[in-house]
């Protein structure tokens, strides 16, 4: 059931990418898609009532720990994937800033018009 959240985020993000005209909004939509996948990944490892994956005094034995803790591996994975998303995000923002300097607008239809005008 909880996966519905990830699905909704994914659909919202995809919708945003294909309908928005503003570059910044498109980039935000991409970011939402990446969050959707991260949320899905973190939900995969979740267990209701689970403890944080830290070995404490109470859960010092591996078997007891494995029974109570949430899965730490997806958490490690999304850390990596968040870093990757961040670098793509930074790159996309940098490129769109450069485009803004050239065309003076973030609107992709305006940019396309300007480009066609400059070619003809």
């Amino acid at each position, binding site marked *: 059931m909880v996966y519905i959240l990830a699905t909704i985020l994914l659909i919202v993000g995809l919708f945003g990418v294909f309908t928005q005209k503003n570059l910044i909004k498109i980039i935000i939509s991409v970011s939402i898609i990446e969050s959707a996948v991260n949320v899905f990944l973190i939900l995969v490892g979740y267990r209701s009532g689970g403890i944080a994956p830290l070995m404490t005094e109470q859960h010092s034995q591996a078997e007891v720990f494995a029974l109570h803790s949430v899965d730490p591996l997806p958490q490690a994975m999304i850390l990596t994937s968040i870093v990757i998303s961040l670098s793509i995000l930074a790159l996309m923002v940098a490129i769109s800033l*450069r485009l803004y300097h050239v065309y003076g607008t973030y609107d992709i239809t305006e940019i396309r018009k300007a480009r066609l005008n400059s070619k003809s």
Partner: protein
Amino acid sequence: MTNLLPLMVAIPLAAGFVLALIPRTGTRTCNAVACGASAAILVIALLLFGKTDAYQMGGWEIPIGINLSLDGLSWLMLIIIAVVGFAVTLFSFAYMDTYTSKNRYYCILMLMVAGMNGTALSGDIFNRFVYVEIAVIASYILVGFGCEADELEAALKYAVLGAIASALTLFGVAILYALYGTVNIAHLAEKISSGPPVAAAASSVFFAAVVMLAGFTYKSAAVPLHIWQPDAFSTAPATVSAALSGALIQIVGIYAMIRTMFIVFGITASIGWILLCIGMLSMAFGAVAGAKQSELRRMLSYHSISQIGYILAGLGIGSIVIASGEDSPVAALAIIGALFHMVNHAVFQPLLFLTAGSIESSTKIRQIKNLAGVARKKPLTSAASLIASCSIAGVPPFGGFFSKMMIIIASALAGYYLIAITVVAISIVTLVAFMRFQYKMFFGQEIEPAKIEKKTPISMKVAMAALSVICIATSLLAIPAVRSAVLEPAKEAIVDRESYINRLNTDNQSTANPTNYKTETGK
């Protein structure tokens, strides 16, 4: 002997960071470092020939730790990356002088090579996702490297859609982890081959396969997800187009697709048909759209789509035959044809882009119609271009002919005559397009004499000559003895899923750990 596999990732990575530290003015040092790193990779890749090897990062045993594993297919990819990387580095010596901050260009190029090598070697789907991301993020930057408006637009389009494709791939990884609790390829293949954990999960596995296939299709620039490719390849620096078309789209696209579909999921007829359809569509679309382009590099990039289509179609036919459980020689022929075409594509496509770059940098010509008479002014460039064109068009003694022939014969033997005829027809369209291009270059009437602003620098000449020699040499792969040494192990790696799974255990034994870390991580 110490294990060489981590060096394949470590050397370009280290070179990348060293290059970033070199000041902008030290272009000679940059050249030397980049060239040294690419040469080192090439040497190591050659040393690894015919080996199967594995390396556990940090000494963790396989289902828990991350591993690099080498087999015939990975080796083929490594050698493709090494050759293309070396040629591109050499060509960049002079070509990239027109751009500022050459150190950063080489830095990012080396990071891309590191990412691709890691992709080819990684034995873990999440780890491979990370390597793929390193390679493609580097490629987004390289496409927009010139910072002209067109390049930036192409790079942004590539990056936005590429980020979605990457997210889809990660989604597939997440689904597989949710179902099977592992991300190691061999371990995952073992679990998937013994059936889904619950009966209802079968459709989830298929969903994961399709989602990942979509991600890889985007990166291999096959129709219908090709839209980024012509813009990116026609505006980026020519060396970048060469590196991307020769290595990147083949490694992070097709290689990753093969590894996932054949080894992780185990090939099924439905996936085979998807591959075949994508392949035929790309083939037809690329050839037809390429035929009416007026800009040289745009035409080449459409033809790249078309050639990727041949590879996918070969793989598709192979997998349909395997899935139907019929005679394996036909499947073997189709898959070897596809691999052979991958090798050819990795040689002729960079060569074509490099020759286009050479023409561009000395005459500023980008349109095909202005090429007339260039052959007389630039003999070596046009000879290299002719060799590559013959190979891509499938003129008999060249490698491209044999690989296309293998795919056509395989599809005829498998009983898909219509597909065989279509492939032949598309090859003819390609041949005509390249004949037109070469005719313009050699015999075209000069409207206005092409201005040669500067001579072709020696480094460019060496790079193009080396690739031309390799381009002619690829036809040697048609000889059975050479083929069985180079392409057979790669084919075995694709077809023989069992042995990949079995290597899980033998790899653990071969690099036995002094201490067992396993006790504390219970899962």
